[in-house]
């Protein structure tokens, strides 16, 4: 069994989760083997390219997608497997203990209801608050996420809010019941950097205030670097590497993580230095290559053909709790982002 080396039992523990869609074009292996733990109070970041299964993974934990087929795995929440829970019990956890913030608040908020009412609804459903008490709670929450004149704004409709305000309102809704885990799926991708900074600041402040853990899903490694305690990298629906933020950024071991970090344009880098792209196109989740999903794009494939034949398991990389799924971990000892970049630019 995979060991993530935690002292206390984790809040959420996902093992070998596989969630497929049966479509006319074939089986979409949206999530195809994901394992990780989220501990109480930590910021756990999930990064990966678009289509790598981040959203499906998150919504599967929430028990949301109807058409998904769970092919294997378990999702333990405080010791109970959510996948085995009847819908009625799952519903009680959803929103109250685990809440979700979506990328696009305009589609996630109901356009025909006042913002305050939508926030209050959470408290009414899960805590049985009266209409009046729920209204007060909504204003309190809007205030908490830094929306000025909260009482007035609570009576407004989502389209009357700006993008950043809407995302704050989404956060307010998610934290109404003080959940233990907040899943934020690309909460700032649609926002400008200046507004992104505001929203992330609110998110972090809230996290301390209500003492919850955050699963932060994003493709922006800069955001991850600033906020995450631990990071999981996904590729083609699989966990390819997981570890603390410093381990991931400074001692990355999986060739995909290394390639991703090496490919970034960095502020302050020299203009005439070419960037190092990862060759090839992101894997399709319908025609997943056999063996390691990354092997067609990898520059470290082993000569014995293992990478194209057998799927690598997550193994300990540089420290307990830092795991990577690669056959060539030993050969990668000493490889760094810098060396990948140097090799790529031929310097």
């Amino acid at each position: 069994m995979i060991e993530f080396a935690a002292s206390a039992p984790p809040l959420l523990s996902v093992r070998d989760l596989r969630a497929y869609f049966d479509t006319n074009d074939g089986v979409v292996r949206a999530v195809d083997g994901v394992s990780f733990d989220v501990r109480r109070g930590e910021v756990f970041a999930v990064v990966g390219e678009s289509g790598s299964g981040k959203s499906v993974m998150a919504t599967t934990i929430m028990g949301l997608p109807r058409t998904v087929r769970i092919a294997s795995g378990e999702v333990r929440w405080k010791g109970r497997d959510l996948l085995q829970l009847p819908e009625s019990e799952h519903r009680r956890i959803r929103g109250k203990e685990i809440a979700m913030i979506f990328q696009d608040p305009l589609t996630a908020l109901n356009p025909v209801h006042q913002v305050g009412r939508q926030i209050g609804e959470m408290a009414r459903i899960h805590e049985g608050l009266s209409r009046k008490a729920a209204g007060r709670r909504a204003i309190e929450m809007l205030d908490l996420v830094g929306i000025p004149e909260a009482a007035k704004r609570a009576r407004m409709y989502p389209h009357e809010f700006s993008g950043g305000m809407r995302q704050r309102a989404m956060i307010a809704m998610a934290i109404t019941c003080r959940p233990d885990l907040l899943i934020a799926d690309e909460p700032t991708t649609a926002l400008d950097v200046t507004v992104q900074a505001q929203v992330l600041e609110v998110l972090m402040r809230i996290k301390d205030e209500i003492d919850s853990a955050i699963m932060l899903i994003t493709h922006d490694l800069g955001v991850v670097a600033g906020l995450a305690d631990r990071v999981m990298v996904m590729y083609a629906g699989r966990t390819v590497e997981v570890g603390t933020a410093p381990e991931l950024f400074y001692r990355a071991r999986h060739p995909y993580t290394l390639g991703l970090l090496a490919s970034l344009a960095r502020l302050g880098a020299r203009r005439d230095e070419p960037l190092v792209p990862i060759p090839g196109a992101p894997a399709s989740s319908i025609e997943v290559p056999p063996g390691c999903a990354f092997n067609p794009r990898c520059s470290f494939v082993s000569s014995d053909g293992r990478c194209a034949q057998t799927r690598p398991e997550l193994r300990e990389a540089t420290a307990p709790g830092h795991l990577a799924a690669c056959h060539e971990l030993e050969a990668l000892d000493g490889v760094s982002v810098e060396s990948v970049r140097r090799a790529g630019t031929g310097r």
Partner: protein
Amino acid sequence: MSDGLIEVRGSGPGAELGPPLLVATDLVKDFPLRGGVFGRTTGRISAVAGVSLTVRRGETLSLVGESGCGKSTTGRLLLNLIRPTAGTVRFDGLDLATLSGKELTHARRRFQIVFQDPYATLNPRMTIGATLGEPLRVHFGWKAARRAERVRQLLDTVGLAPQYANRFPHEFSGGQRQRVGIARALALEPELIVLDEPVSALDVSIQAGIINLLQRLQDELGLAYVLIAHDLSVVQHLSHRVAVMYLGKVVETGPAEALFSSPAHPYTQALLSAVPVPDPEIQRDRRRLVLSGEPPSPADPPSGCRFRTRCWKAEARCTELEPELVERGIGHRVACHFPHVVVDPLG
């Protein structure tokens, strides 16, 4: 309306660059704001409010700023895809507004555009070969064999295999489509290309390849670029000069090096400080300027300095008097009553 042309020579990356190719003077674009039952004009959106720019042969001028600040509108004005409300655009001495239809068609060969969304930018009903060959037929009247030869050559230039000519856009990945979009812009051998968010829709691991391609094409073909982008890391990597826009106006412009290392406008400083850096140690220790609020509506811009509503330095004077762009260094111009250079905004 000199843009510090002479001063820039012999300094920094602008040194080897050629004479002005495109000169835009006091460009203004208002869009009517329609409302009511009969769709009458009820106001106007001041999308671009007096922008002057110069692009020299072989250089990259970047336009940066939050979404809605008028970057794309400026790009379209530069290419005469939309008519300015006021102001002129001279391309190599030709005033585009005075050209006849035929002359304009002829001039269009010399400047092209690459769009953001690789999925919307290619006609889904046409093969890649037809898309690339069409301008050659329309403008040069070439026969099929000659066109096919040039299409092969274009595909090769952007790093795509020649047999892709027979395929349709939906058979390509995002990165490949963007390469086709670039090939199409190159077909008529233009001297200037407007790149409107050319990599924003692409995954990071793919972005690097496109950025390298753009840089290589510039070096080989001597192209001038107007790069519109919101990712400042990408901007820094590709630009010789940068113009920062806020609510339809240029608030700071200058050589990329000067602007990134010693920004003088508070907005530029805030923008740079909000860019997440993918390095946990740097990112966590950065002193950050978090702007409050979001840009005001361009339908009703603030009086005086347009940035004053979000500026921490704003005083009475900013409300009354609109600051002019003032020279502060070699080709470095700032529109602020209280400019103050911050050295190393990243640290």
